[in-house]
């Protein structure tokens, strides 16, 4: 009459063993996803910098600004799940109010930059690049650089 108990224990053990694995996989997906977004912003900001330094023709400046704005708008949702890891410091979620406000500001500023670039080209938008791309001010607090 005691046979079912070991079977049940086996099942519980299996569930316990499986659940951390699946939860780790989910966490890695969350980290990977937000990294795709941040890496896109990095690439686009670097392309804009090359154009501003006149190393590359300015024809596509407005398009880079638009991609930056679109991507910035996706970042907040990507950071909502509280999953420390990658280059994100845990303080990011401890100071969520500040961090999310900074992302909102970035979204608004890059949208403004993209609009200016579309309307008036690089000449009109260039003066706003520095105030729109305040990446370092946020990275200094919330990013742990892992080379």
């Amino acid at each position, binding site marked *: 009459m005691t046979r079912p108990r070991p079977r049940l224990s086996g099942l519980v053990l299996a569930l316990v063993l499986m659940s951390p694995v699946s939860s780790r996989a989910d966490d890695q997906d969350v980290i990977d*996803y937000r990294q795709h977004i941040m890496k*896109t912003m990095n690439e*686009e900001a*670097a*392309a804009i910098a090359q154009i501003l330094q006149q*190393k590359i023709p300015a*024809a596509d400046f407005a*398009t880079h600004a638009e991609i930056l704005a*679109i991507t910035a708008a*996706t970042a907040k949702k990507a950071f909502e799940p509280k999953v420390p890891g990658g280059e994100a410091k845990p303080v990011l979620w401890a100071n969520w109010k500040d961090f999310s406000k900074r992302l909102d500001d970035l979204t608004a500023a890059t949208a403004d930059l993209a609009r200016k670039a579309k309307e008036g080209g690089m000449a009109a938008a260039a003066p706003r690049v520095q105030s729109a791309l305040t990446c370092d001010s946020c990275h200094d607090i919330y990013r742990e650089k892992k080379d």
Partner: protein
Amino acid sequence: MSPVTRMYGVVAMVTALIASNAIAADDKEIIDYREHIMKTLNEQSAALGMMLSMAVPDDNAIAHMEAIALAAKMAPKAFEPKVQGGQSKPEVWTNWDDFSKRMDDFAKKTDEMVRVAKTKGAATAMGNIIEYLPCKSCHDVYRDESKK
């Protein structure tokens, strides 16, 4: 060799060295720039891929598609300067007609992807994602995977 001839020789050599360095620097900029665009395409496609495999919610799907379509439009121009290097095989320029046609088709397809996503929903566009993003068929011919 007279001192004057020797001086001309040195001047010519220095000029050539400076010129070659300047060209090398410009070439690196061109390679870096097109890599920024291709990496944007890669990162955004990967994000979309995660949504397709249901690893993350698909709230941002249309935004990722828009970013891909915009980057795809810029890509052909970024490859116009015939500067070999990075992961590009020399065939990009020796088969330029084919390569540029593929790039133009890619831009059109990603535009269509965005149009479908906006009019019929992201899920409908995701259903045809392989048709809209035929990245591998081009990479197999024109990308040197060994130079990562």
